[in-house]
Protein backbone atom coordinates (compact mmCIF):
# COMPACT_ATOMS: atom_id res chain seq x y z
CA UNK A 1 0.00 0.00 0.00
CA UNK A 2 2.87 2.33 0.88
CA UNK A 3 4.43 1.67 -2.50
CA UNK A 4 1.18 2.65 -4.25
CA UNK A 5 0.84 5.84 -2.31
CA UNK A 6 4.47 6.70 -3.07
CA UNK A 7 3.94 6.15 -6.77
CA UNK A 8 0.83 8.30 -6.83
CA UNK A 9 2.65 11.08 -5.00
CA UNK A 10 5.63 10.75 -7.35
CA UNK A 11 3.35 11.26 -10.33
CA UNK A 12 1.13 13.90 -8.81
CA UNK A 13 3.81 16.39 -7.83
CA UNK A 14 5.52 16.92 -11.21
CA UNK A 15 2.17 16.56 -12.96
CA UNK A 16 0.78 19.65 -11.31
CA UNK A 17 3.99 21.52 -12.12
CA UNK A 18 3.98 20.49 -15.78
CA UNK A 19 0.29 21.15 -16.22
CA UNK A 20 0.93 24.71 -15.17
CA UNK A 21 3.75 25.04 -17.70
CA UNK A 22 2.21 23.33 -20.74
CA UNK A 23 -0.68 24.60 -22.79
CA UNK A 24 -3.96 22.81 -22.10
CA UNK A 25 -4.22 20.62 -25.18
CA UNK A 26 -6.64 17.75 -25.31
CA UNK A 27 -5.35 14.72 -27.16
CA UNK A 28 -6.87 11.30 -27.52
CA UNK A 29 -6.20 8.12 -29.39
CA UNK A 30 -7.90 4.79 -29.65
CA UNK A 31 -6.49 1.50 -30.86
CA UNK A 32 -8.07 -1.84 -31.71
CA UNK A 33 -5.69 -4.75 -31.78
CA UNK A 34 -5.25 -8.47 -31.77
CA UNK A 35 -2.38 -10.34 -30.18
CA UNK A 36 -0.97 -13.77 -30.57
CA UNK A 37 -0.27 -14.56 -26.94
CA UNK A 38 2.09 -17.19 -25.54
CA UNK A 39 1.90 -18.13 -21.87
CA UNK A 40 4.62 -20.19 -20.27
CA UNK A 41 3.89 -20.94 -16.60
CA UNK A 42 6.52 -22.92 -14.69
CA UNK A 43 5.36 -24.32 -11.38
CA UNK A 44 8.19 -26.02 -9.56
CA UNK A 45 9.90 -27.99 -12.28
CA UNK A 46 6.78 -28.44 -14.37
CA UNK A 47 6.50 -26.27 -17.43
CA UNK A 48 3.47 -25.68 -19.63
CA UNK A 49 2.93 -23.78 -22.83
CA UNK A 50 -0.30 -22.18 -23.97
CA UNK A 51 -1.03 -19.97 -26.93
CA UNK A 52 -3.97 -18.22 -28.47
CA UNK A 53 -5.38 -14.96 -29.68
CA UNK A 54 -6.66 -12.11 -27.58
CA UNK A 55 -8.51 -9.16 -28.97
CA UNK A 56 -9.32 -5.82 -27.52
CA UNK A 57 -8.17 -2.31 -27.56
CA UNK A 58 -6.84 0.57 -25.61
CA UNK A 59 -7.56 4.23 -25.45
CA UNK A 60 -5.61 7.15 -24.23
CA UNK A 61 -6.75 10.64 -23.39
CA UNK A 62 -4.34 13.39 -22.38
CA UNK A 63 -4.64 16.98 -21.35
CA UNK A 64 -1.27 18.60 -21.88
CA UNK A 65 1.37 16.35 -20.31
CA UNK A 66 -1.01 14.30 -18.19
CA UNK A 67 -2.90 11.37 -19.62
CA UNK A 68 -4.88 8.25 -18.80
CA UNK A 69 -4.31 4.97 -20.61
CA UNK A 70 -7.07 2.35 -20.42
CA UNK A 71 -7.11 -1.09 -22.09
CA UNK A 72 -9.11 -4.27 -22.23
CA UNK A 73 -8.43 -7.62 -23.99
CA UNK A 74 -9.85 -11.09 -23.87
CA UNK A 75 -9.35 -14.38 -25.63
CA UNK A 76 -8.69 -18.08 -25.27
CA UNK A 77 -5.45 -19.97 -24.83
CA UNK A 78 -4.94 -23.56 -25.88
CA UNK A 79 -2.52 -25.84 -24.19
CA UNK A 80 0.43 -26.70 -26.36
CA UNK A 81 2.41 -28.72 -23.85
CA UNK A 82 2.41 -29.55 -20.19
CA UNK A 83 -0.39 -30.18 -17.71
CA UNK A 84 -1.95 -26.68 -17.87
CA UNK A 85 -5.50 -26.96 -19.34
CA UNK A 86 -7.05 -24.64 -21.90
CA UNK A 87 -8.13 -21.35 -20.39
CA UNK A 88 -9.81 -18.08 -21.15
CA UNK A 89 -7.87 -14.95 -20.46
CA UNK A 90 -9.10 -11.44 -19.73
CA UNK A 91 -6.78 -8.46 -19.26
CA UNK A 92 -7.25 -4.83 -18.39
CA UNK A 93 -5.14 -1.86 -17.45
CA UNK A 94 -5.54 1.68 -16.20
CA UNK A 95 -2.34 3.70 -16.21
CA UNK A 96 -1.89 7.32 -15.26
CA UNK A 97 0.68 8.93 -17.55
CA UNK A 98 2.93 11.91 -17.37
CA UNK A 99 4.98 13.19 -20.35
CA UNK A 100 7.69 15.60 -19.13
CA UNK A 101 9.04 15.76 -22.72
CA UNK A 102 7.35 14.80 -25.95
CA UNK A 103 9.46 11.70 -26.47
CA UNK A 104 9.27 10.23 -22.96
CA UNK A 105 6.32 9.14 -20.86
CA UNK A 106 6.26 7.68 -17.40
CA UNK A 107 3.15 5.81 -16.29
CA UNK A 108 1.90 3.85 -13.34
CA UNK A 109 -1.23 1.99 -12.43
CA UNK A 110 -2.93 -1.36 -12.10
CA UNK A 111 -2.81 -4.18 -14.63
CA UNK A 112 -5.25 -7.03 -14.08
CA UNK A 113 -5.33 -10.45 -15.67
CA UNK A 114 -7.66 -13.41 -15.09
CA UNK A 115 -7.21 -16.98 -16.27
CA UNK A 116 -10.42 -18.99 -16.23
CA UNK A 117 -10.41 -22.74 -16.44
CA UNK A 118 -13.01 -25.34 -15.63
CA UNK A 119 -11.39 -25.59 -12.22
CA UNK A 120 -11.75 -21.95 -11.30
CA UNK A 121 -10.41 -18.45 -11.97
CA UNK A 122 -6.93 -17.24 -11.19
CA UNK A 123 -6.82 -13.47 -10.70
CA UNK A 124 -3.71 -11.37 -10.93
CA UNK A 125 -3.69 -7.73 -9.96
CA UNK A 126 -0.31 -6.06 -10.52
CA UNK A 127 0.81 -2.52 -9.94
CA UNK A 128 3.02 -1.50 -12.79
CA UNK A 129 5.44 1.40 -13.23
CA UNK A 130 6.63 1.89 -16.77
CA UNK A 131 8.64 4.22 -18.93
CA UNK A 132 8.06 4.73 -22.65
CA UNK A 133 10.26 6.40 -25.25
CA UNK A 134 9.39 7.25 -28.85
CA UNK A 135 11.71 7.94 -31.74
CA UNK A 136 10.87 8.64 -35.38
CA UNK A 137 12.50 6.24 -37.80
CA UNK A 138 11.10 7.69 -41.02
CA UNK A 139 10.06 11.32 -40.56
CA UNK A 140 6.30 11.77 -40.48
CA UNK A 141 5.81 8.13 -41.40
CA UNK A 142 7.20 5.57 -38.98
CA UNK A 143 7.59 5.96 -35.25
CA UNK A 144 9.33 3.42 -33.02
CA UNK A 145 8.51 2.96 -29.38
CA UNK A 146 9.92 1.03 -26.47
CA UNK A 147 8.36 0.39 -23.08
CA UNK A 148 9.98 -1.11 -20.01
CA UNK A 149 8.20 -1.69 -16.75
CA UNK A 150 8.57 -3.34 -13.43
CA UNK A 151 5.84 -4.76 -11.26
CA UNK A 152 5.87 -2.95 -7.95
CA UNK A 153 3.45 -5.31 -6.29
CA UNK A 154 1.08 -8.05 -7.25
CA UNK A 155 -1.88 -9.72 -5.65
CA UNK A 156 -2.58 -13.25 -6.90
CA UNK A 157 -5.12 -15.65 -5.51
CA UNK A 158 -2.64 -18.53 -5.37
CA UNK A 159 -0.62 -19.81 -2.46
CA UNK A 160 2.75 -18.40 -3.55
CA UNK A 161 3.48 -14.83 -2.54
CA UNK A 162 4.64 -12.24 -5.07
CA UNK A 163 8.42 -11.94 -5.50
CA UNK A 164 9.19 -9.79 -8.55
CA UNK A 165 8.08 -8.94 -12.02
CA UNK A 166 9.15 -6.97 -15.05
CA UNK A 167 8.49 -6.70 -18.71
CA UNK A 168 8.93 -4.75 -21.87
CA UNK A 169 7.40 -4.01 -25.24
CA UNK A 170 8.93 -2.70 -28.48
CA UNK A 171 7.33 -1.92 -31.75
CA UNK A 172 6.63 0.61 -34.41
CA UNK A 173 3.75 2.62 -35.64
CA UNK A 174 3.14 3.36 -39.32
CA UNK A 175 1.40 6.73 -39.48
CA UNK A 176 1.88 8.62 -42.72
CA UNK A 177 0.54 12.12 -42.38
CA UNK A 178 -1.92 11.54 -45.23
CA UNK A 179 -3.50 8.52 -43.53
CA UNK A 180 -6.47 8.94 -41.23
CA UNK A 181 -5.45 5.96 -39.13
CA UNK A 182 -2.23 4.34 -38.08
CA UNK A 183 -1.08 0.73 -37.94
CA UNK A 184 1.06 -0.74 -35.24
CA UNK A 185 3.17 -3.85 -34.79
CA UNK A 186 4.82 -4.75 -31.50
CA UNK A 187 6.30 -7.46 -29.40
CA UNK A 188 6.06 -7.59 -25.62
CA UNK A 189 7.00 -9.91 -22.82
CA UNK A 190 6.38 -9.97 -19.07
CA UNK A 191 7.59 -12.30 -16.37
CA UNK A 192 6.31 -12.47 -12.82
CA UNK A 193 7.94 -14.58 -10.13
CA UNK A 194 6.04 -15.93 -7.18
CA UNK A 195 7.26 -17.77 -4.10
CA UNK A 196 10.91 -16.85 -4.65
CA UNK A 197 10.89 -18.52 -8.00
CA UNK A 198 8.81 -21.55 -7.16
CA UNK A 199 6.38 -20.29 -9.77
CA UNK A 200 7.38 -18.23 -12.83
CA UNK A 201 4.76 -16.93 -15.20
CA UNK A 202 5.96 -15.60 -18.54
CA UNK A 203 3.62 -14.12 -21.13
CA UNK A 204 4.81 -12.79 -24.46
CA UNK A 205 2.81 -11.61 -27.40
CA UNK A 206 2.94 -10.25 -30.90
CA UNK A 207 0.43 -7.46 -31.41
CA UNK A 208 -1.01 -5.96 -34.58
CA UNK A 209 -3.43 -3.09 -34.39
CA UNK A 210 -4.93 -0.04 -35.97
CA UNK A 211 -5.78 3.22 -34.32
CA UNK A 212 -6.88 6.77 -34.65
CA UNK A 213 -5.53 9.93 -33.06
CA UNK A 214 -7.39 13.14 -32.57
CA UNK A 215 -7.05 16.47 -30.82
Amino acid at each position, binding site marked *: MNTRLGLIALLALPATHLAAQSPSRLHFEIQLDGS*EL*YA*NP*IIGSVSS*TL*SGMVFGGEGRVALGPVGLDLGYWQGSLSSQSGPQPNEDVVEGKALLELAPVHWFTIAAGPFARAYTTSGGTERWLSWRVQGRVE*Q*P*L*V*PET*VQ*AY*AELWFVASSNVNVVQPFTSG*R*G*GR*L*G*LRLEPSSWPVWLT*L*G*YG*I*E*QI*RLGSGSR*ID*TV*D*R*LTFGAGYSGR
Partner: protein
Amino acid sequence: MTGRRGLLWAALAAVVVAPSGRGLAAQEQNRTLNSALQAYQNLEYETAAALLRRALAVEAPSADTLPTALRPKALTYLAASDYYRGRKDSAAVVFRRLIVQDPRYRPDPLIFPPEVTAAFETARRAMKVVEVITPSDTSIRLGRDQYPIRLYASSFHEVVVGLERPDGRFIKGIYAGPIGDSLDVSWDGFDSTSTPADGNLVLTVTSRPTPGGEVVRVVRIMLDTRTTHADTLPWPTPSDTLLLPERAPSGPALRSLSSGLLGAAAVLLLPSAVGSGTHPAGARYAVVGALSLAGIVGFVTQRPGVPLPDNVAKNVARRAAFQRQIELAKQDNARRRTGVLERIRAGVPLVISRENQ
Protein backbone atom coordinates in the same frame (compact mmCIF):
# COMPACT_ATOMS: atom_id res chain seq x y z
CA MET B 1 17.30 79.60 26.10
CA THR B 2 13.72 80.79 25.58
CA GLY B 3 14.97 83.98 23.97
CA ARG B 4 17.13 82.04 21.48
CA ARG B 5 14.23 79.82 20.55
CA GLY B 6 12.06 82.90 19.99
CA LEU B 7 14.66 84.39 17.66
CA LEU B 8 14.88 81.16 15.75
CA TRP B 9 11.11 81.02 15.24
CA ALA B 10 11.06 84.65 14.17
CA ALA B 11 13.78 84.06 11.58
CA LEU B 12 11.98 81.00 10.27
CA ALA B 13 8.71 82.92 10.02
CA ALA B 14 10.49 85.71 8.17
CA VAL B 15 11.90 83.24 5.62
CA VAL B 16 8.51 81.59 5.09
CA VAL B 17 6.39 84.73 5.00
CA ALA B 18 8.72 87.19 3.29
CA PRO B 19 8.38 87.23 -0.55
CA SER B 20 11.45 86.90 -2.70
CA GLY B 21 13.14 89.87 -4.39
CA ARG B 22 11.70 88.94 -7.77
CA GLY B 23 8.21 88.67 -6.27
CA LEU B 24 8.61 92.06 -4.69
CA ALA B 25 9.64 93.60 -8.03
CA ALA B 26 6.66 92.06 -9.80
CA GLN B 27 4.33 93.38 -7.15
CA GLU B 28 5.89 96.80 -7.49
CA GLN B 29 5.54 96.74 -11.31
CA ASN B 30 1.89 95.77 -11.08
CA ARG B 31 1.26 98.32 -8.40
CA THR B 32 2.80 101.11 -10.51
CA LEU B 33 0.90 100.06 -13.63
CA ASN B 34 -2.35 99.67 -11.68
CA SER B 35 -1.86 103.08 -10.08
CA ALA B 36 -1.22 104.59 -13.52
CA LEU B 37 -4.32 102.95 -14.98
CA GLN B 38 -6.36 104.10 -11.98
CA ALA B 39 -5.09 107.64 -12.52
CA TYR B 40 -5.96 107.37 -16.24
CA GLN B 41 -9.50 106.25 -15.34
CA ASN B 42 -9.77 109.20 -12.95
CA LEU B 43 -8.70 111.52 -15.78
CA GLU B 44 -5.52 112.36 -13.86
CA TYR B 45 -3.42 112.18 -17.03
CA GLU B 46 -0.42 113.99 -15.56
CA THR B 47 -0.12 111.43 -12.78
CA ALA B 48 -0.79 108.55 -15.17
CA ALA B 49 1.90 109.73 -17.59
CA ALA B 50 4.45 110.19 -14.83
CA LEU B 51 3.81 106.75 -13.40
CA LEU B 52 3.89 105.09 -16.82
CA ARG B 53 7.15 106.82 -17.82
CA ARG B 54 8.72 105.60 -14.61
CA ALA B 55 7.49 102.07 -15.29
CA LEU B 56 8.72 102.19 -18.89
CA ALA B 57 12.18 103.51 -18.08
CA VAL B 58 14.61 101.08 -19.67
CA GLU B 59 17.85 102.99 -19.56
CA ALA B 60 17.86 102.96 -15.77
CA PRO B 61 15.75 99.89 -14.90
CA SER B 62 14.38 99.85 -11.39
CA ALA B 63 12.10 97.55 -9.42
CA ASP B 64 9.04 99.08 -11.07
CA THR B 65 10.31 98.73 -14.66
CA LEU B 66 7.73 96.75 -16.61
CA PRO B 67 8.49 93.48 -18.34
CA THR B 68 8.33 93.33 -22.16
CA ALA B 69 4.90 91.69 -22.24
CA LEU B 70 3.27 94.59 -20.42
CA ARG B 71 5.04 97.35 -22.31
CA PRO B 72 2.67 97.68 -25.32
CA LYS B 73 -0.27 98.14 -22.97
CA ALA B 74 1.61 100.70 -20.87
CA LEU B 75 2.82 102.56 -23.98
CA THR B 76 -0.71 102.78 -25.34
CA TYR B 77 -1.98 104.26 -22.06
CA LEU B 78 0.99 106.63 -22.01
CA ALA B 79 0.27 107.82 -25.55
CA ALA B 80 -3.42 108.24 -24.70
CA SER B 81 -2.50 110.19 -21.55
CA ASP B 82 -0.20 112.47 -23.57
CA TYR B 83 -2.88 112.86 -26.19
CA TYR B 84 -5.44 114.02 -23.61
CA ARG B 85 -2.87 116.28 -22.01
CA GLY B 86 -2.72 118.09 -25.35
CA ARG B 87 0.73 116.78 -26.18
CA LYS B 88 -0.10 115.17 -29.48
CA ASP B 89 3.49 115.20 -30.75
CA SER B 90 4.58 113.37 -27.64
CA ALA B 91 1.73 110.90 -28.12
CA ALA B 92 2.89 110.28 -31.73
CA VAL B 93 6.44 109.62 -30.50
CA VAL B 94 5.13 107.09 -27.98
CA PHE B 95 3.03 105.41 -30.65
CA ARG B 96 6.07 105.17 -32.95
CA ARG B 97 8.02 103.59 -30.14
CA LEU B 98 5.18 101.12 -29.68
CA ILE B 99 5.11 100.26 -33.41
CA VAL B 100 8.86 99.71 -33.51
CA GLN B 101 8.61 97.32 -30.60
CA ASP B 102 5.68 95.36 -32.02
CA PRO B 103 4.55 96.14 -35.60
CA ARG B 104 1.57 93.81 -35.19
CA TYR B 105 0.15 95.58 -32.14
CA ARG B 106 -3.18 97.44 -32.41
CA PRO B 107 -4.92 99.39 -29.59
CA ASP B 108 -8.19 97.86 -28.46
CA PRO B 109 -10.99 100.10 -29.90
CA LEU B 110 -13.29 98.98 -27.06
CA ILE B 111 -10.91 100.55 -24.51
CA PHE B 112 -9.49 103.53 -26.32
CA PRO B 113 -11.65 106.19 -27.97
CA PRO B 114 -11.55 106.75 -31.73
CA GLU B 115 -9.34 109.86 -31.51
CA VAL B 116 -6.61 107.79 -29.81
CA THR B 117 -6.85 104.89 -32.26
CA ALA B 118 -6.89 107.38 -35.15
CA ALA B 119 -3.70 108.97 -33.84
CA PHE B 120 -2.18 105.50 -33.61
CA GLU B 121 -3.21 104.71 -37.21
CA THR B 122 -1.66 107.94 -38.42
CA ALA B 123 1.60 107.07 -36.73
CA ARG B 124 1.46 103.49 -38.02
CA ARG B 125 0.94 104.54 -41.64
CA ALA B 126 3.94 106.79 -41.40
CA MET B 127 6.14 104.05 -39.92
CA LYS B 128 7.89 101.56 -42.22
CA VAL B 129 8.89 98.85 -39.77
CA VAL B 130 9.35 95.13 -40.36
CA GLU B 131 9.60 92.43 -37.74
CA VAL B 132 11.66 89.46 -38.96
CA ILE B 133 10.94 85.99 -37.56
CA THR B 134 13.39 83.18 -38.32
CA PRO B 135 14.05 79.79 -36.72
CA SER B 136 16.75 80.25 -34.13
CA ASP B 137 18.41 76.89 -34.85
CA THR B 138 17.40 74.56 -37.65
CA SER B 139 18.74 72.29 -40.37
CA ILE B 140 17.59 72.08 -43.97
CA ARG B 141 18.34 69.52 -46.67
CA LEU B 142 19.84 71.44 -49.56
CA GLY B 143 17.80 71.11 -52.71
CA ARG B 144 14.77 69.84 -50.83
CA ASP B 145 14.01 72.15 -47.91
CA GLN B 146 13.73 75.91 -47.56
CA TYR B 147 14.78 78.16 -44.73
CA PRO B 148 11.61 80.07 -43.75
CA ILE B 149 11.66 83.83 -43.14
CA ARG B 150 8.45 85.52 -41.97
CA LEU B 151 8.06 89.27 -42.16
CA TYR B 152 5.45 91.39 -40.33
CA ALA B 153 5.11 94.98 -41.49
CA SER B 154 3.63 97.94 -39.66
CA SER B 155 2.27 99.35 -42.92
CA PHE B 156 2.49 98.89 -46.66
CA HIS B 157 5.95 99.60 -48.03
CA GLU B 158 8.79 98.14 -50.07
CA VAL B 159 11.28 95.62 -48.68
CA VAL B 160 14.43 94.03 -50.01
CA VAL B 161 15.47 90.75 -48.39
CA GLY B 162 18.98 89.55 -49.10
CA LEU B 163 22.04 87.80 -47.80
CA GLU B 164 25.51 89.23 -47.53
CA ARG B 165 28.81 88.54 -45.86
CA PRO B 166 29.58 90.38 -42.64
CA ASP B 167 31.99 92.52 -44.66
CA GLY B 168 29.14 93.57 -46.96
CA ARG B 169 29.79 91.35 -49.97
CA PHE B 170 26.56 90.39 -51.66
CA ILE B 171 25.58 86.70 -51.49
CA LYS B 172 22.07 86.39 -52.75
CA GLY B 173 18.88 88.36 -53.19
CA ILE B 174 15.83 86.65 -51.75
CA TYR B 175 12.99 89.10 -52.30
CA ALA B 176 12.42 92.65 -53.47
CA GLY B 177 8.94 94.05 -53.57
CA PRO B 178 5.99 95.29 -51.58
CA ILE B 179 4.85 94.04 -48.23
CA GLY B 180 1.39 94.62 -46.79
CA ASP B 181 0.59 93.07 -43.46
CA SER B 182 2.91 90.07 -43.57
CA LEU B 183 5.02 88.13 -46.02
CA ASP B 184 6.59 84.69 -46.11
CA VAL B 185 9.84 84.31 -48.01
CA SER B 186 12.35 81.51 -47.97
CA TRP B 187 15.96 80.77 -48.73
CA ASP B 188 17.13 77.55 -50.37
CA GLY B 189 20.55 77.52 -48.68
CA PHE B 190 22.49 78.32 -51.86
CA ASP B 191 24.28 81.48 -52.87
CA SER B 192 23.78 83.23 -56.22
CA THR B 193 26.13 80.73 -57.91
CA SER B 194 24.07 77.78 -56.61
CA THR B 195 26.87 76.81 -54.25
CA PRO B 196 25.89 75.80 -50.71
CA ALA B 197 26.42 78.87 -48.55
CA ASP B 198 28.73 78.22 -45.65
CA GLY B 199 30.06 80.30 -42.79
CA ASN B 200 28.78 83.54 -41.31
CA LEU B 201 26.15 85.38 -43.30
CA VAL B 202 23.94 88.35 -42.62
CA LEU B 203 20.24 88.33 -43.47
CA THR B 204 19.23 91.90 -44.27
CA VAL B 205 15.71 93.25 -44.58
CA THR B 206 15.74 96.78 -45.95
CA SER B 207 12.62 98.92 -45.74
CA ARG B 208 11.82 101.75 -48.19
CA PRO B 209 8.61 103.76 -48.33
CA THR B 210 8.51 103.49 -52.12
CA PRO B 211 10.37 101.45 -54.76
CA GLY B 212 13.83 102.96 -55.13
CA GLY B 213 13.08 105.37 -52.32
CA GLU B 214 15.19 106.33 -49.38
CA VAL B 215 16.19 103.54 -47.00
CA VAL B 216 14.44 104.11 -43.70
CA ARG B 217 15.24 100.95 -41.81
CA VAL B 218 17.45 97.86 -42.05
CA VAL B 219 17.11 94.70 -39.95
CA ARG B 220 20.27 92.57 -39.85
CA ILE B 221 20.35 89.03 -38.48
CA MET B 222 23.58 87.08 -38.27
CA LEU B 223 23.25 83.56 -39.68
CA ASP B 224 25.80 80.93 -38.74
CA THR B 225 25.59 78.31 -41.50
CA ARG B 226 27.39 74.97 -41.57
CA THR B 227 27.03 72.38 -44.35
CA THR B 228 27.41 68.70 -43.54
CA HIS B 229 26.83 65.45 -45.36
CA ALA B 230 24.35 63.00 -43.87
CA ASP B 231 25.83 59.72 -42.59
CA THR B 232 25.20 56.63 -44.67
CA LEU B 233 23.56 53.63 -43.12
CA PRO B 234 25.35 50.28 -42.75
CA TRP B 235 24.17 47.49 -44.99
CA PRO B 236 21.99 44.90 -43.31
CA THR B 237 24.01 41.93 -42.12
CA PRO B 238 22.65 38.43 -42.70
CA SER B 239 21.75 36.52 -39.59
CA ASP B 240 23.64 33.29 -38.94
CA THR B 241 20.33 31.47 -38.85
CA LEU B 242 18.94 33.15 -41.97
CA LEU B 243 19.41 30.21 -44.31
CA LEU B 244 18.29 26.65 -43.74
CA PRO B 245 20.42 23.66 -44.79
CA GLU B 246 19.59 22.78 -48.38
CA ARG B 247 20.98 19.28 -48.18
CA ALA B 248 20.27 16.73 -45.50
CA PRO B 249 22.93 16.47 -42.81
CA SER B 250 24.15 13.10 -41.65
CA GLY B 251 22.71 13.29 -38.14
CA PRO B 252 19.02 12.43 -38.72
CA ALA B 253 19.82 9.61 -41.14
CA LEU B 254 22.24 7.95 -38.75
CA ARG B 255 19.84 8.49 -35.88
CA SER B 256 17.07 6.69 -37.77
CA LEU B 257 19.32 3.82 -38.77
CA SER B 258 20.78 3.36 -35.32
CA SER B 259 17.36 3.62 -33.68
CA GLY B 260 15.91 0.98 -35.99
CA LEU B 261 18.81 -1.42 -35.53
CA LEU B 262 19.01 -0.87 -31.79
CA GLY B 263 15.26 -1.43 -31.51
CA ALA B 264 15.59 -4.67 -33.45
CA ALA B 265 18.44 -5.79 -31.23
CA ALA B 266 16.43 -4.85 -28.15
CA VAL B 267 13.55 -7.08 -29.32
CA LEU B 268 15.99 -9.95 -29.64
CA LEU B 269 17.46 -9.32 -26.21
CA LEU B 270 14.27 -8.39 -24.42
CA PRO B 271 13.24 -11.95 -23.33
CA SER B 272 16.58 -12.65 -21.69
CA ALA B 273 16.60 -9.19 -20.12
CA VAL B 274 13.13 -9.66 -18.64
CA GLY B 275 13.79 -13.04 -17.06
CA SER B 276 15.70 -16.26 -17.24
CA GLY B 277 14.23 -19.48 -18.46
CA THR B 278 11.91 -17.88 -20.97
CA HIS B 279 11.06 -19.45 -24.29
CA PRO B 280 10.10 -16.48 -26.41
CA ALA B 281 7.89 -16.83 -29.41
CA GLY B 282 9.47 -16.78 -32.82
CA ALA B 283 6.88 -14.27 -33.94
CA ARG B 284 9.02 -11.48 -32.49
CA TYR B 285 11.27 -11.74 -35.54
CA ALA B 286 8.56 -9.99 -37.49
CA VAL B 287 9.07 -6.97 -35.25
CA VAL B 288 12.85 -7.32 -35.53
CA GLY B 289 12.56 -7.22 -39.30
CA ALA B 290 10.09 -4.32 -39.31
CA LEU B 291 12.24 -2.18 -37.04
CA SER B 292 15.38 -2.92 -39.05
CA LEU B 293 13.61 -2.18 -42.32
CA ALA B 294 12.14 1.07 -40.99
CA GLY B 295 15.57 2.18 -39.78
CA ILE B 296 17.07 1.50 -43.19
CA VAL B 297 14.22 3.29 -44.96
CA GLY B 298 14.67 6.23 -42.59
CA PHE B 299 18.37 6.32 -43.39
CA VAL B 300 17.78 6.19 -47.14
CA THR B 301 15.13 8.91 -47.16
CA GLN B 302 17.30 11.19 -45.06
CA ARG B 303 20.70 10.13 -46.35
CA PRO B 304 23.35 12.84 -46.19
CA GLY B 305 23.41 15.13 -49.19
CA VAL B 306 19.82 14.58 -50.28
CA PRO B 307 18.36 17.92 -51.44
CA LEU B 308 15.68 19.36 -49.15
CA PRO B 309 13.21 21.09 -51.52
CA ASP B 310 11.25 22.82 -48.74
CA ASN B 311 14.40 24.38 -47.34
CA VAL B 312 15.61 25.33 -50.83
CA ALA B 313 12.33 27.16 -51.52
CA LYS B 314 12.45 28.94 -48.15
CA ASN B 315 16.05 29.96 -48.75
CA VAL B 316 15.21 31.40 -52.18
CA ALA B 317 12.52 33.57 -50.60
CA ARG B 318 14.83 34.63 -47.75
CA ARG B 319 17.68 35.50 -50.12
CA ALA B 320 15.29 37.60 -52.21
CA ALA B 321 14.04 39.41 -49.12
CA PHE B 322 17.59 40.05 -47.93
CA GLN B 323 18.57 41.31 -51.38
CA ARG B 324 15.62 43.71 -51.29
CA GLN B 325 16.85 45.03 -47.95
CA ILE B 326 20.29 45.63 -49.44
CA GLU B 327 18.80 47.43 -52.44
CA LEU B 328 16.75 49.67 -50.16
CA ALA B 329 19.86 50.45 -48.10
CA LYS B 330 21.78 51.23 -51.30
CA GLN B 331 19.09 53.61 -52.51
CA ASP B 332 18.85 55.29 -49.14
CA ASN B 333 22.61 55.71 -48.94
CA ALA B 334 22.73 57.13 -52.47
CA ARG B 335 20.20 59.75 -51.39
CA ARG B 336 22.16 60.45 -48.25
CA ARG B 337 25.46 60.84 -50.14
CA THR B 338 24.01 63.44 -52.48
CA GLY B 339 21.96 65.15 -49.80
CA VAL B 340 23.77 67.97 -48.00
CA LEU B 341 22.46 69.16 -44.71
CA GLU B 342 22.83 72.81 -43.78
CA ARG B 343 22.53 73.83 -40.18
CA ILE B 344 21.52 77.46 -39.72
CA ARG B 345 21.64 79.29 -36.42
CA ALA B 346 20.19 82.78 -36.33
CA GLY B 347 21.40 85.55 -34.07
CA VAL B 348 19.55 88.45 -32.49
CA PRO B 349 18.06 91.01 -34.94
CA LEU B 350 20.01 94.27 -35.12
CA VAL B 351 17.97 97.29 -36.29
CA ILE B 352 19.45 100.30 -38.05
CA SER B 353 16.95 103.07 -38.64
CA ARG B 354 16.93 106.72 -39.47
CA GLU B 355 15.12 107.43 -36.22
CA ASN B 356 17.90 105.83 -34.18
CA GLN B 357 20.41 108.01 -35.96
